[in-house]
């Protein structure tokens, strides 16, 4: 038998006898012959561990190693070596949703820490136990706003929200029967005056904005929450988690729901996932929030204990009355960012954000000095910025690739560059050299 199957011939015979049949095949006697699968699957023959390893290494060698200046929601931050090592603790890795609190305190305990840290970072009252990623967290927030509202089914989305998020919002909205309306932007900034107009028409359950926005610009959201609340709409703010170490928080802007991706908290880019979405909200919305929540309680020995709580909100209880179908989330990735925030702490998270900020501004200044680039919008930005190039963008982008540089993300007619604390001065100078050619 294969190494994952412990059955010896003797075991098989004894077990079949207990079941009262004489062959493994007889276990499936109830399946109609016409649909029974006979023969072999069209798959390769079994590989030894060495062959599997060789296959993956060869595949890996076919990827090109690039120095990353790309962002658009996914950033090349550093992963401290403690994290992958702790994450391989198989008591975490090979467990499931902590239904049995008595033997799952490890998981429940770190989720409580995760919720605490995310609430701190976003300046909100509470957090759920995690979502899939930032885009789906935003879609869940959109549906939550509609469910929390009194029959309103329209949600306004700023034109400065990432197109990656918008695409996912569009999908969910179409099927869920939500009307999405774009808030136009001017000079790369969401227009409050237009929101006021759109809100005044009525039927709006929520307003979605992004901070920093798709162009990396830090927008001034003064007055947005008041405008929303006046018309009984919720303000949803989507942010890159790591940037909140320095930025004015969704809580400070008066947001009702804060969502976004936690990938920036030390999770490797890994070609798109797994990451972790976060969702935080004000205390009064707690019973409307999707996903799992861990709460503190006591056990019958009077010890402090943690447990899944407020489950009446969840899909398995509400079934067809549910407003979200999320059940398992990204628990292990929540642990990832929890360990990250524990290591970085109050100071480290700020320092890393400050380094990213400084590196991005240095790169921007150097690119402008070449005389070939201009900032599309002259607005304050964080660690990502959007420039126009006076030559052919495709040629430039290809030149970067050939030099081993992922020179940003092409967006509309320009380029969106991102810098993290991982980028050295040499790497940035090298990019600028290539850009100036």
């Amino acid at each position, binding site marked *: 038998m294969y190494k*994952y199957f412990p*059955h010896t011939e003797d075991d098989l015979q004894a077990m079949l006898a207990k*079941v009262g049949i004489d062959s*493994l095949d007889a276990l*499936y006697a*109830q399946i109609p012959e016409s*649909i029974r*699968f006979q023969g072999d699957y069209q798959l390769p023959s*079994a590989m030894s561990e060495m062959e599997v390893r060789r296959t993956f290494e060869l595949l890996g060698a076919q*990827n*090109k190693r690039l120095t*990353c200046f790309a962002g*658009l929601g996914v950033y090349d931050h550093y992963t401290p070596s*403690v994290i992958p090592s702790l994450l391989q*603790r198989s*008591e975490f*890795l*090979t*467990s499931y949703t902590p239904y*049995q609190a*008595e*033997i799952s*305190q490890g*998981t429940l*305990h770190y989720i*409580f820490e995760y919720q605490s840290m995310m609430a701190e970072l976003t300046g909100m009252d509470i957090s759920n*136990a995690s979502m*899939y990623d930032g885009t*789906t967290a935003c879609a869940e927030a959109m549906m939550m706003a509609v469910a929390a509202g009194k029959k309103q089914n329209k949600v306004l989305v700023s034109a400065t929200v990432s197109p990656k998020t918008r*695409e996912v919002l569009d*999908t969910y909205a179409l*099927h869920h029967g939500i009307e999405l309306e774009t808030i136009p932007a001017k000079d790369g900034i969401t227009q409050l005056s237009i929101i006021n107009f759109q809100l005044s028409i009525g039927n709006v359950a929520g307003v979605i904005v992004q901070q920093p926005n798709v162009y990396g610009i830090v927008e001034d959201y003064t007055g947005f929450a008041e405008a929303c609340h006046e018309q009984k709409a919720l303000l949803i703010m989507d942010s890159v988690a790591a940037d*909140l170490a320095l930025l*004015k928080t969704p809580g400070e802007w008066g947001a009702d729901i804060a969502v976004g991706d936690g990938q920036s908290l030390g999770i490797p*880019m*890994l070609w798109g996932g797994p990451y972790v979405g976060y969702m935080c909200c004000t205390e009064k919305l707690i019973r409307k929030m999707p996903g799992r*929540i861990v709460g*503190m*309680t*006591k056990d019958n*020995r009077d010890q402090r204990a943690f447990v899944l709580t407020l489950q009446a909100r969840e899909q*398995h209880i*509400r*079934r*067809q009355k549910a407003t*979200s*179908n999320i*059940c*398992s989330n990204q628990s*292990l*990735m929540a642990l990832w960012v929890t360990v990250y*925030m524990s*290591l970085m*702490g*109050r100071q*480290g998270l700020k320092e890393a954000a400050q*380094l990213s900020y*400084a590196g991005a501004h240095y790169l921007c200044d150097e690119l402008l000095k070449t005389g070939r680039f201009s900032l599309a919008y002259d607005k304050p930005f964080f660690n990502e910025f959007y420039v126009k190039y006076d030559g052919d963008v495709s040629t430039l982008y290809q030149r970067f690739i050939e030099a081993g540089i*992922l020179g940003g993300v092409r967006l509309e007619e320009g380029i969106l560059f991102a810098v993290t604390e991982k980028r050295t*001065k040499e790497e940035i100078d090298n990019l600028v050299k290539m850009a100036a050619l």
Partner: protein
Amino acid sequence: MNNRLYGNLIFELSKEGRKGYSLPKNNFGNYELPAEMKRAEDAALPECDELTVVRHYTNLSNNNFGVDTGFYPLGSCTMKYNPKINEEMAALPQFQNLHPQQPAETVVGARAIVAMLERSLCALTGLAHFTFKPYAGAHGELTGLMVIDNYHRSRGDLQRKKVIVPDSAHGTNPASAAVCGLEIVEVKSTQNGLVSLEDLERLVSLEGDSIAAMMMTNPNTLGLFETSIPAIAKLIHDCGGLMYYDGANLNPMLGACRPGDMGFDVMHINLHKTFSTPHGGGGPGAGPVGVREGLQDFFPVVSPYHGNFGVMMRALTYILSLGRENVKMVGPLATLNANYIKESLKDVYELPIDTTCCHEFVFDGLKDKSTGVTTMDVAKRLLDYGYHAPTIYFPLLFHESLMVEPTENESRETLDGFIAVMRQIAEEAKTDPELVKSAPHTTPIGRVDDVLAAKHPVTTYRQLQAE
């Protein structure tokens, strides 16, 4: 697992001035975020040195139970062994650093992995195309229903909004339908625990024109194979609906039967169940959705990139390791293990439907109901003996459901040990019911006060401090 509670929160270990990180110096000069854009106060995150962090999470892990700790017969969750080689392949540095926006010619290896996984899943399911965007099983369900909704919309069949599900369905099925803007219609089960063809015929004749799909698992949540599946598929197809396969129970079908051959048009697969990727305390999983030829044009954009690529790498590692020779043994061995436990315990536990099961089966509590010992009590007592509990109070068809799924990786000795303990608990229920009702006794914590947690929610450290 350590049975002494480790109770500190990381915040309680924090001391101002300690740090657990090292960052390079700033060589870029003085760039400062404008003050009006800064947060007023720092996020109150802990300040700890590196070893404190490492010990803290290591100690926490010791209060957790995983598949590597012991037998985890959690029904419907397929808690199989998570091979170590999978982890190593998913951590290869040549993949870790790939940005999802890289040009295609720089990610040839990554794309090859997706293509190989898609070919493998097609071979194993009999479907033609997969999308890997869904991040989890429930996300896959939603995606699959969106495919179906998109298909009907494309044909102008806008009134097809009803989805038939068996009354034994997973809770996510109706919830996914609701999120997708579809309406659930329940079809009854027969005495034998299978979909009632009679009731289905009634529904189809009543609602035929408004049926978007029928959504089911096969084997169903009782672990029973729906033998009428060809007739069910025909009924649904004839009225213009599509067949959706909830892949949560795919494991016993490896080597036995393919969803495509059963007549299903759309399905999702839980890679974290059937294809051995770790459950991670509740994610990340992956829920790729497969469709019959022609339906791939209706895949929706439910996530921005390539799904949980790291999970996909693990699943492919598993498939390549097993190969065609071994993958077909998965279903039969999982099925044998389940039937072996069922046959060994059905004299003391109530087996409502006594027939051959697939990978799992459901007891309706203890046979002797006079002791007052419930399924919850049995589950908690199992923890004392070093086992994870089965799934309890699901499916909703019985009052005392106890759903056992052993997987193919467990040895006869492990199963015999579990059987002996289950019999012991049945005995204890008679001789010392209080012992069972007050279990667990040896775990880091005892039974928790759920009511207190819900009535007075404390969900962050800040709230805890304010107490």
